[in-house]
């Protein structure tokens, strides 16, 4: 499984009282808080300022062994030379020094796992993404921001022509609530012959440890943030499937992991900046879709209104012309019903025959005359377009 040659800040370490802490100028080393193949990370206090820091101590080479200290110095020199300015998502290294026996460097100290600020208390444990994931997946908004911070940090390395080669949750420290990519022990320049080192679980199947390998590892780390499942469960969503389906931000992140963790390196994002670009584009897509759909809605309403107006004009244009018709009854006067509607003046008084009604549609109407005490005189269907006078008699 994982064969990390780098520090694992999350490994709980017993206080090692048998060996005195190494002597490091200006710092009191309080106790070890992390361990790696080649060095130990200590909780330390600056003797002058009293500030708490993390100090990594690496023994210098003994004859016949590999030179981890030399490798760390190379990596750190590279980092300083290539990175033009400090990046907020890379762990800050304040000082690098050497004693007769050790190489040491002084770094930011991670928050406590509880989320509180770092302290010298005996129960202090550095907060990493790995320790955070022990409590399950990150809440969706935090997933998005942590993913972005990880990619920003990684992109700054890639842009400076370097490859991290050991991106994993244990190397993502939380300092003041911000994610900082740490452990530059395997850092190398992107155009060098790149050997297969790092943590196996996060290595791509093709084994080439270049910027695309960092992208692959970052994809798996983001997958763990979303699901809380270990990286080797990728791409399963399990119980999180429904939640991801309902949350557009989680959908975007899941698609991003699928793009980052393709087995064929050519199918992956070339580097962290490209991955970040895709994240930004996908995040803004739903918004632009909303704008588009709003625009579509406006266009549809306008079209509908236009159609409606044309229809009304059509109806108006095609409506029958208006005519006037004389109504005459004999031997009695009568009220007039056209299509069963009694015809009345604007003030409500019924028209009585003989009279002329104006503005009548020139089409077929049913006409009935009524006189109180007499049966209704049904004239029948009369076409006003052809008839200008309707005359009726009571027998």
């Amino acid at each position: 499984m994982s064969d990390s040659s780098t520090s694992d800040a999350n490994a709980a370490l017993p206080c090692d009282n048998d060996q005195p802490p190494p002597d490091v100028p200006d710092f009191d080393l309080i106790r070890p808080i992390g361990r790696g193949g080649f060095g130990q990370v200590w909780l330390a206090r600056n003797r002058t300022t009293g500030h708490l820091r993390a100090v990594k101590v690496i023994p210098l080479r003994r004859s016949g062994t590999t030179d981890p200290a030399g490798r760390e110095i190379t990596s750190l020199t590279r980092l300083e030379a290539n990175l033009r300015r400090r990046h907020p998502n890379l762990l800050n290294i304040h000082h690098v020094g050497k004693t007769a026996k050790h190489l040491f460097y002084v770094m930011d100290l991670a928050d406590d796992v509880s989320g509180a600020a770092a302290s010298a208390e005996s129960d202090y444990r550095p907060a990493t993404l790995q320790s955070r994931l022990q409590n399950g997946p990150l809440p969706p908004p935090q997933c998005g921001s942590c993913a972005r911070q990880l990619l920003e940090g990684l992109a700054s390395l890639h842009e400076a022509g370097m490859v991290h080669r050991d991106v994993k949750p244990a190397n993502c420290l939380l300092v003041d609530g911000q994610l900082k990519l740490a452990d530059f022990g395997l850092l190398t320049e992107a155009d060098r012959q790149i050997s297969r080192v790092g943590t196996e679980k996060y290595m791509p199947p093709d084994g080439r440890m270049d910027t695309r390998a960092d992208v692959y590892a970052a994809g798996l780390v983001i997958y763990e943030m979303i699901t809380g499942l270990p990286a080797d469960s990728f791409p399963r969503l399990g119980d999180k499937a429904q939640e991801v389906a309902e949350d557009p931000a989680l959908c975007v992140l899941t698609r991003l992991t699928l793009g980052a963790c393709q087995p064929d390196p050519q199918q992956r994002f070339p580097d962290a900046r490209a991955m970040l670009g895709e994240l930004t584009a996908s995040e803004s897509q739903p918004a632009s879709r909303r704008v588009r759909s709003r625009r579509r809605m406006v266009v549809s309403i306008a079209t509908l209104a236009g159609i409606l107006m044309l229809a009304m004009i059509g109806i108006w244009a095609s409506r029958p012309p208006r005519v006037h018709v004389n109504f005459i009854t004999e031997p009695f006067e009568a009220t007039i019903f056209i299509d069963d509607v009694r015809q009345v003046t604007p003030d409500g008084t019924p028209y009585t025959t003989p009279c002329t009604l104006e503005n009548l549609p020139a089409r077929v109407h049913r006409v009935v005359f009524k006189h109180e005490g007499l049966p209704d005189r049904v004239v029948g269907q009369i076409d006003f377009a052809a008839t200008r006078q309707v005359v009726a008699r009571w027998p």
Partner: protein
Amino acid sequence: MMNGKTRATLLEQLRDGTHPLAWDEFFGRYWSLVFGYARHRGCSDYTAEEIVQEVMLKVFEEKDVFQYDPRRGRFRDWLAAVVRNKVAEHRRRPSERVRAPGGDSPLRGVEPEADEPQPDAAWERAFEDTLLAALLDAARREVNPRDFLAFELLAIEGLSGAEVARITGLSRNAAYKARRRVLKRLRQLGGTYADNGQLTERIKQALSSRPGPAVQRSLTTRMERTMRSR
């Protein structure tokens, strides 16, 4: 990608334990079986985790790779015996009360064994669940992650085509095609497994019986530490 002929015997290899496995592969495949069985036999979560760890150490005593020798009988029976012995050892310990780290309340290490009409039926079922999960893992490693996720979401999680398309970035049609491909591959890998057309249903049940990611994470961390220091 593995060829179909080699993989056709995967189920038999899994069933017989004759496929050589490194500790992490063995752990990945069998931890939930051991954990579930220890829980089934009355252990607390904490003790069940201890038992997983002890079983792993027992299996890998001095070796780096595990390969079962079929002369010892059926692999599943042998593994069941190892787990049962570990549970019995815990039950015999003078202090049966195991304290969880950082917890104030002592947890009962092992509860008295409940009356169990068919103790082996549970193991057989759990063993089959493990085989099915391993089958699914084998398919997962062979196909593109996008296709596998489409399969999982459609066939196991029951999401709609539109939802799956949104999550995977595939078209709906491509998502359904991916489901068919993965299912076909699972059937090939299953070989002699008589699924009666219920393969996805059985896989669904097998997955639902697995402990959650929190247990898996905590156990993985413990095991990594233990095996590294071995």
